[in-house]
């Protein structure tokens, strides 16, 4: 199979003086394109660290093997990582991380500016994406004028404007109410259907319900979720119930 992300023996250790913390240990996973994958686990289990490594925002330990769209992450220089991020990866953070002093449309168009695309073209494409996420009428506003859900949708538009192969979402619905979260989940599902591999770290059962595959992270170790028991064992009862319901309905 043609994996867009393929990792084996993926490790990440943080050192603080003489102390050493293992955030990820022997993680192995393969993600196909056009899929929606969720990573669940308790806080501090290593979900965000794993997404940062896959998103080339951080470097794995040297014993690791990680290929992103066929490229070996370990041998990349900082410059190569930035290039690969620009070409392959979009990010959706929990707090959107929109730049407050720019308008919404300028925020969305920003990734295209870093690709050397002229101002008119990138604004046209940004407006098209804002239309798609239902924010066309808010394009000229400052991000601080948007609600939490609108900010996340604007951030999704920004992440997708450069048509990345991978979209990494770190708890995108954590700060949203149910209705806004549902809207965003629908958009993420659409993005995955469009050919992008969507990776989501989440605690939200509504997100896991729509996922194609789920991984459980427990103290830095990864396991693919086959049934609800593993989730329940980790105290993730809501997710376990959702997952079991999906399995019984033949969703996965």
């Amino acid at each position, binding site marked *: 199979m043609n994996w867009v992300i393929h990792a084996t023996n993926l490790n990440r250790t943080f050192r603080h003086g003489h102390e050493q913390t293992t955030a990820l240990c022997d993680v192995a996973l393969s993600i196909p394109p056009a899929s929606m994958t969720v990573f669940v686990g308790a806080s501090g289990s290593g979900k*965000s660290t794993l997404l*940062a490594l896959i*998103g080339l*925002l*951080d*470097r794995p330990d040297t014993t690791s093997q990680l290929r992103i769209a066929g490229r070996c992450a370990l041998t990349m220089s*900082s*410059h190569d990582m*930035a*290039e690969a*991020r*620009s070409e392959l990866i*979009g*990010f959706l*953070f929990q707090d959107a*991380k929109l*730049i407050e*002093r*720019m308008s919404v449309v300028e925020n969305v168009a*920003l*990734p295209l*500016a*870093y*690709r*050397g*695309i*002229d*101002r008119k073209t990138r604004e046209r494409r940004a407006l098209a994406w804002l239309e798609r996420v239902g924010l066309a009428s808010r394009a000229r506003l400052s991000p601080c004028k948007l609600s939490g859900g609108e900010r996340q949708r604007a951030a999704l538009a*920004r*992440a997708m404007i*450069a048509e990345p192969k991978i979209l990494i979402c770190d708890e995108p619905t954590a700060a949203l109410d149910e209705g806004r979260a549902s809207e965003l989940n629908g958009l993420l599902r659409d993005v995955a259907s469009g050919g992008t591999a969507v990776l989501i770290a989440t605690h939200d059962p509504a997100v896991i319900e729509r996922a194609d595959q789920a991984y459980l992270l427990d103290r830095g170790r990864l396991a693919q979720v086959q049934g609800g028991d593993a989730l329940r064992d980790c105290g993730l009862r809501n997710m376990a119930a959702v997952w079991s319901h999906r399995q019984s309905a033949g969703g996965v």
Partner: protein
Amino acid sequence: MTRLRFSTAWVRLSDTLRFALWGLLSRPVRSATVVGSLAAGVAAVVLAVGIIRGYGAAAERAAYGVYARSLVIRENVYSLDRYGPPILSDIPRLQDAVEFVDTILAWRMARVAARSDELSGEVDVFGVYGDHRIETGMEVAEGRDLSYEEAGSANRVCLLGEEAAERFFPGGALGESLSLGGISCEVIGVLEPSQARTSDRFDRAVIAPFTAAARYFQPTEYMAPDEASWMTVVIGPGGDLHDARVAADRTLRRARGVPMSRPTPYSYDDPGAPRRAVERERALLGALLSAIAAVSMLAALIGYSGVLMSSINERSREIATRMAIGARTRQIVRQFFAESLLSGLAGGGLGGLVGIGLCITLARIWDWEVVIDGQIFLIALALGLGSGAVCGLAPAWRVSTAMPWHVLRQ
């Protein structure tokens, strides 16, 4: 293909400048602090340069031209033994005896009654033996100068200083006849205004050939035809004024039969001495001001780079976000480098204007000379740009090469 490359480069450049400008304008207080701290240092440097140059120009004007290295020989009027003024035949003696003599001019001055069609009054007539320009530093603005033959003759021709020409011939002096002590002299030239305080007396005077002056115009105290009011011995490069003075005194004493035990029959003035003193002062003042300006600039640079560094650190999350959404290292470096260059340019420009303003104000208060030109403003801009380049590159590079995740998770 070339057009596409140009277009991409233009998009990058305009975006870099736009983002940099946006980065500065979106934080006005921070940017004002950055620009202001640099402007203070640049203003100090501009002020120092302005004062040093102004002071230098004043020194140039205080003493000018040949007086820098010359001896002026006059009769020693304080001596009880009077041997008369120096005479023309002393010139070859001095030329033989004094080393490194460049040239010797002899002057004879008399105050005479002058009359033109418009005006009558008194005027100083300077009879010159030699090329007057060596001492006056004044070229002819209208007409012609005294020729070599005329300078040694008794021809009744004269040159007028600018003010004298205006005074006696408001409608134009050239070719006119000026009566000097009842002797009619043709005005063959009008001199340009003097450039130095030491020669401004020639602006109001008449210059005539030495022999003519000796024949037609008598000073108050009788002088023989070959006697000069003073002689100016110009010392060339390599010559020492003290040695020249000793040699000249020995020669003239021998010529007049004055033993060394008697007071010297002549006084030997060194008109360049004040200028050299001014130059020494100027060098000292320049060194002091340069040191103060350098310390001010250094303090400003430390403040500037500190504010720049903290400004970039403050924006590290923004930088990390930009990198997460696709900015390359070089694009971030370019943006922040452009920001620091722009702030440097603004600081340099503002500092330049403030420095020039201070120069002008202080010069008005203390009646100083001010030399302000485009060059001084260019120096300010270059200082600002250089500071921006030096102080901006390192923090921009440091922040952009950090792993974005480490910044984002803080």
